[in-house]
C-alpha cells in the first residue's frame, strides 16, 4: 500500500452560486463530473514509491565518486505507473489545445499538427542517434538537414540557410549576428537597428542582445511602415531594419522592395521576422523582396507542435552577402552527392568551394546541430504538401482570415479593414465596447464559449488589439461556429454586459490573481508540514 498523502492537500470546494448562476450542489471531492481536480505530484507521491523497476542499491558496493556521495534527501517524490498516467491525463484535461478546437492566436499559427510527423520523428534512425556519432553512421540525418535546407532556400529564394537556431528568437539573434559580423568584416561599426512599433517584443530584445540601440519606425495610417519617414531616418549609423512581413497587423508591407532598396543604398541590411510566413509560403519569395536574413518558425508555418511552449526551431535563410557569416556547424553536399557536416576543423576547406572565399562564421550558437526532431517533422510536412500544397496553404490561410474579418467588421472596430484585404490574420480593436469593458473581458468570454482567445493587446499600435489567426486547417463549418460565438461575445461587449468581467465561468479556474503571483512569488512547492 502507498504511504498516505502527507501534505494535507484538499481539492478546493465548489463555489456557491455567488454570481447568480445555477451550478448545482457542492461535491465532497471538489470535482464536477468530468471536471476533475488534481493535486501536485508532490502532494500525492512519496520518496519510497517508484514507477520504474531498477536493481536495488547494494549499500556495500564500493564507489568512485570521490567522496561526494549525496547523503541528504533530494526531496523528490515518485508515483507508480498507473498513478503517473492518471495524474498527467487528469492534468492534460485542463488544457485547451488545437486538437480540441480552433486556436485563433494571432501571430502564432496554431495549425493542425499532422500525426505522420510524430511517427517519423520517432523512427529509431532519427530519434535514437547521438549528435557526436561518426559522420558515416549519420549520413541519413545529415541528408534530412540538407534536404530541409534546400526546401527552405527554394521557398524563400534566398542563398543560404543556418539550421542550428533553436527557436524563432534564437533565429533572430542568428540573423542579427550575421549582420553584425558582415558589417564588422567591412570595418563598419553601425550602432542603430530600426524596428516598427508593431514589432514582436523579441525584435528589440534581440537587437539589444546583439549590441544595438533600437529606434522605432513610425507606421503610416494604413498600418504599414511609413516609407518616407524610414528613408529620412536611414544613414551611416543604421545597421539594419527589422521588419515583419506580413506585419503584425496582418498586412502585407506593400513597399517592402522599396524599403529594402533604400536600406541597402544606405549601407544597411534588412532583417525580416518570418513569424508570419504562413501567409505567403509558395506565393511570394522574400528573397525577391530584398531581404537579407529571415528566420522561419518551423513550429508555425511547418506544423511542428507547439508543445505548450516549445520546443521550436528557427532556421535562418540568408542572402549571398550574409551567408559566409552563418554559425557552425552546418551541412554541405559535395559534387559526389555526399552530405558533410562542417565543423570548425573542416570549415576552411569547404568554404572555398561553397562561398568562393573563406567562410567567416561568427561562431557556434548551440552545442549541437539544431532541432533535429523538428527538422524531421517539418520535412515530412513539406513533402506531404509539396510545392502545390504549400501554395494552397497560404491561400486558404488568407481566405479564412478574410472571411473572419468580413464576418465581424460590422460589429467590431477593424482599423485597417477599409484599406483592403488582410493576410493570414484579422485585427480588431476595442473602440466600440460599452461600459468599461476591455479586450481581456471579451477574451475571457470566448473561453466560456469553448475557444482559446485570440492574441490580445498585441500589436501595441491598436488600442485593445485582438489579433485573430484561424490558419488553413479550419473548415468553413468550424469558422462559422467560431464566428457565431465571437459575434455573440462582441455584442455583449458592445452592450457593456458587466457579466463578462467575471468570465470565464466554466473553465477549470476562474480568473487568476496575477498580481498576487508576482508580489509574493511562490515558484516551487514547499511541504506545508516543514514550513
Amino acid at each position, binding site marked *: 500500500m502507498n504511504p498516505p498523502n502527507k501534505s494535507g492537500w484538499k481539492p478546493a470546494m465548489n463555489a456557491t452560486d455567488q454570481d447568480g448562476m445555477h451550478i448545482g450542489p457542492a461535491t465532497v471531492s471538489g470535482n464536477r463530473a468530468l471536471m476533475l481536480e488534481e493535486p*501536485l505530484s508532490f502532494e500525492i507521491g512519496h520518496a519510497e514509491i517508484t514507477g520504474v523497476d531498477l536493481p536495488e542499491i547494494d549499500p556495500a558496493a564500493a564507489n568512485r565518486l570521490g567522496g561526494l556521495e549525496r547523503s541528504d534527501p*533530494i526531496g*523528490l517524490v515518485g508515483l507508480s505507473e498507473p498513478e503517473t498516467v492518471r495524474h498527467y491525463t487528469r492534468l492534460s484535461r485542463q488544457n485547451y489545445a488545437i486538437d480540441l478546437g480552433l486556436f485563433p492566436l494571432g501571430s502564432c499559427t496554431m495549425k493542425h499538427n499532422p500525426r505522420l510527423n510524430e511517427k517519423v520523428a520517432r523512427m529509431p534512425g532519427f530519434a535514437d542517434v547521438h549528435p557526436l*556519432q561518426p559522420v558515416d553512421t549519420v549520413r541519413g540525418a545529415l541528408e534530412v538537414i540538407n534536404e530541409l535546407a534546400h526546401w527552405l532556400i527554394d521557398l524563400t529564394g534566398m542563398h543560404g540557410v543556418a539550421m542550428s537556431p533553436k527557436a524563432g528568437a534564437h533565429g533572430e539573434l542568428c540573423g542579427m549576428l550575421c549582420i553584425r559580423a558582415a558589417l564588422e568584416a567591412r570595418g563598419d561599426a553601425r550602432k542603430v537597428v530600426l524596428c516598427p512599433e508593431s514589432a514582436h517584443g523579441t525584435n528589440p530584445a534581440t537587437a539589444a542582445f546583439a549590441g544595438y540601440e533600437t529606434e522605432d519606425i513610425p507606421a503610416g495610417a494604413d498600418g504599414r511602415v511609413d516609407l518616407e519617414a524610414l528613408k529620412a531616418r536611414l544613414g551611416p549609423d543604421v545597421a539594419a531594419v527589422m521588419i515583419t512581413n506580413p506585419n503584425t497587423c496582418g498586412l502585407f508591407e506593400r513597399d517592402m522592395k522599396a524599403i529594402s532598396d533604400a536600406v541597402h543604398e544606405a549601407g544597411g541590411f534588412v532583417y525580416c521576422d518570418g513569424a508570419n510566413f504562413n501567409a505567403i509560403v509558395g506565393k511570394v519569395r522574400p528573397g525577391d523582396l530584398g531581404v537579407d536574413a529571415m528566420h522561419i518558425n518551423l513550429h508555425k508555418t511547418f506544423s511542428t507542435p507547439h508543445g505548450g*511552449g516549445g520546443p521550436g526551431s528557427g532556421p535562418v535563410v540568408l542572402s549571398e552577402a550574409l551567408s559566409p557569416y552563418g554559425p557552425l556547424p552546418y551541412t554541405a553536399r559535395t559534387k559526389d552527392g555526399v552530405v558533410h557536416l562542417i565543423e570548425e576543423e573542416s570549415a576552411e576547406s569547404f568554404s572555398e568551394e561553397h562561398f568562393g572565399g573563406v567562410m567567416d562564421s561568427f561562431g557556434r550558437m548551440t*552545442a549541437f546541430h539544431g532541432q533535429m526532431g523538428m527538422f524531421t517533422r517539418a520535412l515530412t510536412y513539406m513533402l506531404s504538401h509539396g510545392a502545390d500544397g504549400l501554395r494552397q496553404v497560404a491561400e486558404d490561410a488568407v481566405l479564412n482570415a478574410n472571411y473572419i474579418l468580413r464576418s465581424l467588421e460590422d460589429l467590431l472596430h477593424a482599423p485597417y479593414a477599409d484599406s*483592403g484585404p488582410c493576410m493570414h490574420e484579422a485585427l480588431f480593436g476595442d473602440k466600440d465596447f460599452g461600459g468599461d469593458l476591455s479586450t481581456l473581458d471579451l477574451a475571457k468570454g470566448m473561453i466560456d464559449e469553448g475557444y482559446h482567445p485570440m492574441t490580445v493587446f498585441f500589436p501595441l499600435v491598436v488600442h485593445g488589439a485582438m489579433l485573430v489567426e484561424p490558419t488553413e486547417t479550419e473548415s468553413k463549418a468550424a469558422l462559422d461556429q467560431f464566428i457565431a460565438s465571437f459575434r455573440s461575445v462582441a455584442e455583449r461587449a458592445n452592450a457593456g454586459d458587466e457579466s463578462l468581467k467575471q468570465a470565464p465561468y466554466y473553465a477549470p479556474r476562474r480568473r487568476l490573481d496575477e498580481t498576487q503571483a508576482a508580489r509574493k512569488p511562490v515558484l516551487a512547492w514547499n511541504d506545508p508540514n516543514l514550513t
Partner: protein
Amino acid sequence: MRYLPLTDTDRSDMLATIGADSIDDLFTDVPEEARLDGPIHGLPMHASEMAVEKHMRRLSKKNLAAADAAFFLGAGAYKHHVPASVDHIIQRGEFLTAYTPYQPEIAQGTLQMLFEFQTQVARLYGCAVANASMYDGSTACWEAVAMAGRVTKRKRAVLSGALHPHYAEVVKTMAKFTGDTIADAKPSIQPEPDTTGLRDRIDEDTSCVVVQYPDILGRVNDLTEIAEAAHAKGALLVVVNTEPVALGAIKSPGEMGADIVVGEGQSIGVGLNFGGPYLGLFAVRNPKHVRQMPGRLCGETTDAEGKRGFVLTLSTREQHIRREKATSNICTNSGLCALAFNVHMTLLGEKGLRQLAAENHRLACLAADKLAQVPGVTVLNSAFFNEFTIVLETDARALVRKLAAKNVLAGVSLGRLFPDVDALSQGLLVAVTETTSEEDIDTLCSALKEELA
C-alpha cells in the same frame, strides 16, 4: 490535400462573402512582380502519407541507431531508457498541441506541470528556484554568464578548461557581441581537474567562474573551495551539469555553494534526437536573484473563487513586456521536453533516481575495470560518475571511426571535441548507462584489443 478541410465550393462561397472575385484579389498588396504564378519549380508536388513515410524511412535507415550498436557516447548527450508512459503522455494532444500558457484558466495542465518541473529541478540542483526551461544546456550556460554580469555588474567570466568545448564556444560567440570578456583555458589531461589554476584566474573584475560537474572528462570534484574563492572576490559560481542522473548519486552544486546552476536535462525523458530538441535547465540558489533570471517562471496563485491555480509570473523581466530591456530575448522554450522530464522524474521519484544513478555508476566502474585490463588503455579518472576518459596509445578519433564500421560506437574522442589541442588526441570519453549491457562492455574491450594489438 488531407490537411486542408476547405472544399472548392467552400472557397467560392467564402470569396463571395468577402466580396472578392478570386483568391488573387486577396493578394493584391503583394507587388505583381513579386507574385509567383504557380508552384515553385524544382520542388516535388504533394504526396500521400504512405509515400512520405517510405521516403523518410529510407533516410532513417541510413543512420546507425544507438540501440543497434554497442554504444558508449556521452559528452553532453546520454542514452537512457525512457519509460513508454513518458512518450504516451507527451503525445496527448492537450499537451502536444497547446500553446504557451498565456490564458491560465485553460492552461492549468501545462502550468501545474511546469510548477512541478521547477520544483524537481530546484531540488535536484540544490537551489531555491528553477525556471520553466531554456533551449538546451549550452544556451542556458550563456544565459548564466549573462545573468552573472547583471548581478555583479562586471563583464569578465572565467571558464574552466574542463567545460564542454561547445558550451565554451557558445559563450565566446555571444560574448563577442555583448562586449564581455571570456577567460577560457584548455583542459589538462590529468586524473583530477586543475582547481588551483582556475582559482588563480579569478580577480576583482570577475563576474563568474564557470565549472562543469561532472566535467568534460567525466571527473567529479568538490566545488566548495572554488565557490569560496569566487565569493571572496565578489564573483558568482556558475555550475554546468550535462548529466542530471549524476545528481542522484553525487552532491548537488547548490550544496557546494553554486550560485547559478544550469544544465542539459536531455537524460531524463528526452532521448538523443541527434542533438535536439533538448532541455535547458536553469536554477538559482539565492531567491533574491530571481528577478535577474532569464526565461519563463510559473508561480502559484489563487483564482477569483479562492482555488489554487498557476500562472506565468514575473514577466516584467521578459521580452514581450520589456522589449529591449528584457533579461533575455527567449520566448518559446522547451515546454514539451520539460513535460517529458517531469513525467520521467515522477516515475523515478527519489528512490528510482537513486537506483538509476547507482546502476549507472556500477556499470561504469565495471567498464573502467575491464578497459583497464586492455593493453594500451589507461583509465585517466580517479573519480567519475558514468563517464570517464581513457587514454590510448593511438589517435582516438581515427580509432572511433574504425570501430564504428564494426558496429561499436566506442565513445567521443577528445580530438573531435578539441580539434586544436594535440595533447588530447589520444583521449577517448566513454559513457556507460543503465542501457549498457555487460556484453556491450565486453564487445568494446575485445574490439579495442583487436585494434590496439
